[in-house]
């Protein structure tokens, strides 16, 4: 029991820190905006971590799921439908539907094929978004208003939005955590570890992997819903494959040993990006170099760093 709580401790600590942050000196508007961005990206990253770490499906098109959620908000906003009980399910269903349609083809493959096909489908979503001239095309679309919750403007208040994001992130983490621990999650990991053996035990990998892909897509759609509301603006640039690469980077930066890695990775990513972009105009060069170095020298990610340092110290 103790070990179980201990393994959840990093995630619980992070979520707790985000909960008290507005009252612990991080209540400024700018910091709240930054934290909301980090939490929303963390949500998508946790779902991606479920795919990569749980099912061994390295998706390079995860940003497209967020894009479908965000564009559902845009299309409904254009039709002046802004009630959360309609918009949120629509965002989730749109992303899940896209995940189902593309996953049905993509999940049949694995390895390099899967990476390239998800990349291609993600790019398809991107180009489709750029061709939607009625919704701003390349330039993007500014929302008339944030989504309303039960007629109230809960999401308009900065604190209200902060806790809405935090609640969504916590729920996502808890759901994915339970999913991985369930029978479904164990079959997923068995399929990832050895598909042949899992099949010999009577489990067909296809429906399990497809279900995982659709679930991750649905969560991505919910994150996209929040992302659109956070910026009150949606542009195709948010869906480009570079964004998918960044989400994947967050997952790896944090480490694949557990879902808390994705939380840590997303927070670390947003902070690093924010800090570096204020240092140098061409900060992406440093960012890219750090990314390469992290992959080459930090295979366990940030969450694996203490163990890695301890190991090196023992050796040294």
């Amino acid at each position, binding site marked *: 029991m103790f070990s179980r709580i201990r393994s959840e401790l990093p995630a619980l600590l992070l979520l707790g820190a985000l909960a008290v942050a507005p009252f612990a000196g991080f209540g400024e508007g700018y910091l709240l905006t930054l934290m909301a961005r980090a939490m929303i990206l963390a949500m998508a990253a946790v779902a991606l971590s479920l795919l990569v770490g749980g099912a061994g499906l390295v998706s390079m098109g995860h940003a497209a799921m967020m894009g479908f959620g965000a564009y559902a908000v845009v299309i409904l906003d254009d039709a002046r439908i802004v009630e959360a009980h309609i918009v949120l399910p629509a965002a989730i269903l749109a992303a899940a539907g896209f995940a189902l349609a593309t996953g049905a083809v993509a999940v049949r493959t694995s390895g390099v094929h899967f*990476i390239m096909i998800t*990349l291609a489908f993600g790019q398809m979503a991107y180009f489709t978004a750029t061709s939607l001239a009625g919704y701003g095309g390349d330039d993007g679309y500014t929302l008339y208003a944030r989504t309303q919750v039960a007629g109230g403007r809960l999401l308009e208040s900065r604190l209200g939005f902060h806790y809405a994001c935090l609640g969504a992130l916590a729920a996502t983490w808890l759901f994915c955590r339970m999913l991985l621990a369930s029978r479904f999650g164990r079959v997923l990991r068995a399929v990832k570890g050895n598909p042949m053996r899992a099949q010999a035990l009577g489990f067909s990998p296809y429906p399990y992997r497809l279900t995982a892909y659709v679930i991750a897509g649905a969560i991505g759609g919910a994150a996209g819903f929040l992302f659109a509301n956070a910026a009150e603006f949606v542009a195709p640039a948010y869906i480009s494959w570079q964004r998918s690469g960044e989400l994947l980077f967050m997952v790896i930066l944090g480490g694949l040993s557990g879902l808390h890695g994705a939380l840590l990775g997303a927070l670390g990513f947003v902070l690093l990006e924010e800090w570096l972009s204020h240092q140098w105009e061409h900060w992406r060069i440093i*960012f890219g170099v750090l990314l390469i170095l992290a992959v080459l020298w930090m295979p366990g990610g940030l969450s694996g760093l203490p163990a890695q340092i301890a190991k090196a110290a023992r050796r040294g």
Partner: protein
Amino acid sequence: MSTTLLLVQGLNGLQLGILLFLIAAGLTLVFGVMDFINLAHGVQYMVGAYFAAFFAAQTGSFWAALLLALPAALLFGLLLEFLVFRHLYDRDHLAQVLATFGVILVLNQGVKLVFGAAPLQVPTPELLTGGIRVMEGLLYPVYRLAIIVGGLATAGLLWWLVERTKVGMLVRAGATNAPMVAALGVDIRRLFMIVFGFGAMLAGFAGVLAAPILSVEPGMGDNLLILAFVVIVIGGIGSIRGAFIAALLVGIVETLGRSMMPDLMRLFLSASEARQVGAALSSMLIYIAMAAILAFRPAGLFPVRAS
């Protein structure tokens, strides 16, 4: 849609297909031989175009720029292999994807730092300016025809190299079963370095060819990279022949789709709707085609890998 327009778009599609083939050829061989996924292959194309712009500005001659840019692209590819890719061969695909993604970030921003964010222009070589009358009332630019001819010649050379030389034989063997080739005493790392450098040079060559007709700008390789991926997936990983056929297919479908789809949609929809739906559909077309082909042949049209 007249025959003339159809012919022009067909030629444009062929030309895009040729450029795609030059990029996809190196990519598919690197995949095939070393099972290495290199997202940074698109920036090799961009780097080739920048080399062309740089040398053209220095020497004032397109031909000198072409001659200088090719070895420069080769050396640049080998440098990247030495600095980054060499350390990734034994890692999983996820690590390869991320590290090569990092290379993209560095190089896209790096050219901005060195050359500025504004697009550069490369003048069309004197010899190849003007147009040729392909048929009654149709003047097609000579330079674009030269790209098609030059690309086809390169494809022929590549076919000869892969099918008729000893190195080519090793490359084909490596694509089919790399561990077996290594077990037979071939230094697979050196073979890979050759394939890699050659692939980088081909992508650079595509960049040089494209420089006079497209603007040379940061990130210009990113979109072509995705199309090149579609090409390899359709053609079958490791297959030069598959890459060639798939590249022409993708180039023509993409170009014709963009020009014809809005007109086609007008048969069912109003003009403004047709424009929007047509544009959206045409951008999805090649991905739908890819999905359809994969549904029937999961390993692509010309699978190579022994499984």
